[in-house]
């Protein structure tokens, strides 16, 4: 619990160790973190401090070497690979630095992708994808391919893809890293709106201090430890 609010992310004594050959590398050390449902938190820190690793653990892309990670009520440390995939499909929306849209699919089809894992009909999937594109202000570009969009527009399509299945948490890995200031501000406005209006919990890794200032809370990581 965090200031009386329910925590959607609860990390206790989390350690993450990678191995370079036989050499262990401690990437996260004894991390305790609680993030309230509906929060907008930024994770900042120098390169190699463990920000992305922490984000990956929260998103269920990886599991801790030790400690517990309870995300949206699920203990990720006890989950199989398959259960983690199901967890990501239901609870997490991803926004990557380089958008990572499928170049062979239109904006609408890219947004529809996560819905292929649901039981929705084709018509329902299409309707929801249009709605998500409308939220990010790109419905008129639904039939455009990523190569026909600007970087800012691509990231907005990626955000539409991240919210189309109505996840509880949006994890954003340097969402403005590849954008100019104006486009970055537009993306941050959109994230803020998703947090304010749609009550999405947003966890954003960023190097950009201006982006970090948009968050309600800034968590600093250095050498694998939270400060």
């Amino acid at each position: 619990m965090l200031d009386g609010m329910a925590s959607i992310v609860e990390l206790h004594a989390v350690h993450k160790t990678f191995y370079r050959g036989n050499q262990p590398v401690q990437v996260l050390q004894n991390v305790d973190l609680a993030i309230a449902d509906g929060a907008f938190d930024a994770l900042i820190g120098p390169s190699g401090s463990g920000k992305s690793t922490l984000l990956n653990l929260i998103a269920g892309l990886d599991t801790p070497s030790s400690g517990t990670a309870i995300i949206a009520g699920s203990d990720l440390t006890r989950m199989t690979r398959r259960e983690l995939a199901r967890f990501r499909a239901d609870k997490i929306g991803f926004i990557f630095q380089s958008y990572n849209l499928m170049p062979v699919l239109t904006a609408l089809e890219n947004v529809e992708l996560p819905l292929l894992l649901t039981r929705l009909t084709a018509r329902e999937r299409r309707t929801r994808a249009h709605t998500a594109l409308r939220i990010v202000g790109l419905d008129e570009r639904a039939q455009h391919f990523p190569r026909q969009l600007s970087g800012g527009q691509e990231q907005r399509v990626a955000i539409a893809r991240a919210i189309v299945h109505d996840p509880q948490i949006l994890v954003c890995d340097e969402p403005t890293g590849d954008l100019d200031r104006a486009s970055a501000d537009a993306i941050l406005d959109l994230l803020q709106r998703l947090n304010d209006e749609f009550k999405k919990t947003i966890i954003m890794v960023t190097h950009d201090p201006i982006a970090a200032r948009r968050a309600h809370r800034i968590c600093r990581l250095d050498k694998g430890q939270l400060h």
Partner: protein
Amino acid sequence: MTRWTLVRRTLTRNPLRTTLTLLGVAVAVITFVALRTVLDAWSTGADYAAKDRLSTRHKVSYGLPLPKRYVDDIATQIPGVSKVTFCDWFGGRWAKAPNEFFANLACDSDAFAVYPEMQVDPRTLEAWKHDKQGAIIGDVLARKLGLKAGDRMTLQGSFYPGDWELRIVGTYTAPAHSPVDRSTLFFRWDYKNERVPERQRDLIGWVFTRVDDPASSARVSRAIDALFDDRDVRTATTSERSSNSTLLGGVSAILSALDIVSIIVLTIMALILGNTIAMGVREQTTEYGVLLALGFEPRDIGLLIVAEAIGLSLAGGLLGLVLAYPLVQLGLGQWLELNVGKFFPVFRISQTTALIVVGLTIVLGALAALVPAMRVGRMSVIDAIRRPA
């Protein structure tokens, strides 16, 4: 949008590579189809051979002659025989076009009675019996050489030197898609026999016998050979089917080689596919990583890769099959039927070959995708997303 949309779009992502791979698979399939059809055509003769027909030749070799009197001996002394006829390989060339090879045989004027599958107009047969220099020509060969009833032609003999004047009295034909060679010329043996030197007279190449009951073929065969066992020239009699199989046995090494080549062709096709799929998977690793991050399972990604490979392989296979019909069946096939119809009387792509192509392209496509799909399945999501293309 469905998962199939993703597969379809991925296949068209790199049009040049996809086109080249499709063509590679198509060429492999055309080659495979051509080889299989050669094998099929070769064995068609044996498969279709009449069960009630026996062929008798010199025991030592096909090339040595038999005395003509053996025909009468068989007809009169062997029980169970319904008809007997004979032929001799003449080996002449048409004076007008010596490079046009076609089989020409000097035969008994009743030869067609033993070969009812060769359809000859009764008036033509009648004319042949009354014209010692008459010849009956296969309709396919007649078309090729531009000959018709009433035309004259001169054969230049090789085994039997000299010019041999013949008059075409008509043509023989056969039902469509039957294995009968329609590119042979038959003329009267008695015409040849009159003109050859004394030492070559009254000799024939083979005796063909029809038996009353196909079940008695083996007994009649043995009886014929036993009849001539104590003569100067001993015989070897076999059923037509067995004779054809023996002929096939003689070229079994070639047939085996063709079989091996067809397997090599398929292996090359699988390697081409495997290379294309592996390149595609390497380029799309980040995208697969994103799909995994979105909640797709490694199994889903594996199925996408296998579907891409099968789609590509099947499309190439069907393209090859579609092209094989005009190229192999109508082009090469018609040429072979026309020019070496004796060996390839029916050169048609069989339904079995077409089904084998469809089946193999699916199986080979899946096999080509197996290793790349397994690699992606084992990769961690984070590694996949971060991996540079």
